[in-house]
């Protein structure tokens, strides 16, 4: 079928329509704040949860709660099945080759720390280099800094352009024989930039360098296919993709995970323990010490099922339209400057207003019922790069509407009225 095929057009239309109709699945969005209907534009900080996720977690605690991987009894088996079933859903969601390559973690931050500790211990020594980019979240900077400090290694940074894109022509020279790993964000939380991850991975692999991708901001917006990207590690959190807090996934290629020592020691990650010697469990359990966040994992599974129903490609299209609409509207507001104007963006509109501090924008918007984030967004180097102390950031999800964008723009007029 081609794009001009009427059948395809109708299908596309129906997919978009289904997204437009899904707002009522999110009970939290039905409330008023300060007497105004809530406009939730802080999705890059955390997303709201559909009823399906809330129900799945409640069902687990009401009917299945039990510890996994250890009981012979009925409940433990059921809980184990549900939990391990999530691993299978995650495998399909990100098109991993094998469930053993998927490790449950607390979130993106823990996933990156796991790799920094474990990969770092196995492969990084004095004089080696770790390559990151100028648009990383602190969670993809600090673990590497700590590793470099401990090992005497050097942290290198890919610079970013004035539009907030990676300076791609600077990359080859930064991939040196000393580079042990490149760690790069898929989508920037502060700028919204979608990075050409596949291209970056290919550049690194040409020199035999593995790549970790911070996918925290990507998974709610774009279809992720780790085999197509060919990245070596991919990290994300459930809570930014409509699942609960406290659970996330580290994808790692088996060839690396096999060579890496455990991150934490404890129950579940062992095969046998004596005081003389402990042998470790197989993948992925080698990296899963202690009782995990079982209820959270089940919530993640429900979030994946929910997103599958909606279709990630349709979500991308819907949000693209919303971001384009919001960008046009905000550029018409006098004194507004958008920080991050990359060609490929997802979900984020970061901006400053002439003579008005982002914190004041945030307070006034809140009084108008509009929730945005203001500050450095845990990306202080990005703020330094653009010469601003902070930005105001509106970030979108598929349950947001153009009417909400209008309310947001109207609230910005209020900001100018009060402080302009």
């Amino acid at each position: 079928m081609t794009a001009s095929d009427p059948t395809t057009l109708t299908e596309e239309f129906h997919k978009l329509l289904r997204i437009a109709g899904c707002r009522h699945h999110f009970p939290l969005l039905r409330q008023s704040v300060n007497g105004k209907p809530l406009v939730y534009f802080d999705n890059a900080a955390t997303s709201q949860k559909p009823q399906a996720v809330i129900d799945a977690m409640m069902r687990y605690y009401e009917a299945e709660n039990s510890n996994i991987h250890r009981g012979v009894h009925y409940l433990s088996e059921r809980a184990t099945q549900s939990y391990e079933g999530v691993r299978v859903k995650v495998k399909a969601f990100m098109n991993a080759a094998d469930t053993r390559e998927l490790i449950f973690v607390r979130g993106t931050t823990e996933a990156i720390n796991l790799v920094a500790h474990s990969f770092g211990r196995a492969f990084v020594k004095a004089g080696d280099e770790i390559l990151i980019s100028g648009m990383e979240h602190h969670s993809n900077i600090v673990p590497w800094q700590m590793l470099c400090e401990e090992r005497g290694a050097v942290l290198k940074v890919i610079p970013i352009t004035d539009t907030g894109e990676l300076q791609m022509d600077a990359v080859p020279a930064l991939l040196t024989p000393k580079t042990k790993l490149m760690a790069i964000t898929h989508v920037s939380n502060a700028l919204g930039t979608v990075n050409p991850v596949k291209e970056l991975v290919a550049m690194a692999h040409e020199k035999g360098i593995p790549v970790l991708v911070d996918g925290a901001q990507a998974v709610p917006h774009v279809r992720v296919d780790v085999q197509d990207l060919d990245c070596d590690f991919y990290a994300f959190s459930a809570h930014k993709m409509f699942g609960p807090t406290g659970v996330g996934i580290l994808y790692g290629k088996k060839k690396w995970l096999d060579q890496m020592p455990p991150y934490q020691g404890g129950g579940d990650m062992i095969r046998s323990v004596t005081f003389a010697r402990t042998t470790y469990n197989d993948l992925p359990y080698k990296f899963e010490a202690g009782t995990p966040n079982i209820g959270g994992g089940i919530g993640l599974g429900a979030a994946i099922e929910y997103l599958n129903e909606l279709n990630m490609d349709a979500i991308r299209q819907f949000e693209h339209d919303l971001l384009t609409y919001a960008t046009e509207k905000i550029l018409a507001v006098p004194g507004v400057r958008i920080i991050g104007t990359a060609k490929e963006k997802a979900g984020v509109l970061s901006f400053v207003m002439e003579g008005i501090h982002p914190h004041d924008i945030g307070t006034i918007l809140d009084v108008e019922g509009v929730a945005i984030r203001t500050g450095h967004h845990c990306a202080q180097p990005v703020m330094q790069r653009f010469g601003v102390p902070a930005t105001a950031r509106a970030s979108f999800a598929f349950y947001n509407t153009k009417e909400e964008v209008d309310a947001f723009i109207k609230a910005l007029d209020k900001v100018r009225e009060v402080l302009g």
Partner: protein
Amino acid sequence: MSVLNELYQQVILDHNKSPRNFRVMEGATKHVEGYNPLCGDHYTVYVKLDGDQIVDVSFEGAGCAISKASASVMSAMVKNHTVAEAEELFRDFHRLVKGELAGEEELERLGKLAAFAGVSEFPARVKCASLAWHTLHSALNTNETSISTE
């Protein structure tokens, strides 16, 4: 008065637009850097003392309207007061923005500082309003050269 007008009172808007004593001070007795890492507000407060008399106060830096206006009003109010008087104002101001002041009489005593009463309705902004005061307090009482609200 709407809740927004209560927060952004005329005094605050005025001091934000034209901050008083907004300059680096040469020959200061003490200067301390105050930083709120949460929102990036960042000021340096300078004091010149003659014995326990505050003969001059100034500040420079950047931040939100509430933090800048607060630093400006503070600088104007504590000048030509004793250290002990400034400290008492700081205590009153702290109670004011936390919503702990007793009544009209106390508010009246605070003069221009009363403009910050609306801050108590915005818990997330209390630190903005207090940053310059904490910095001054540190300058008057400690050997610290920088403070952070976190």
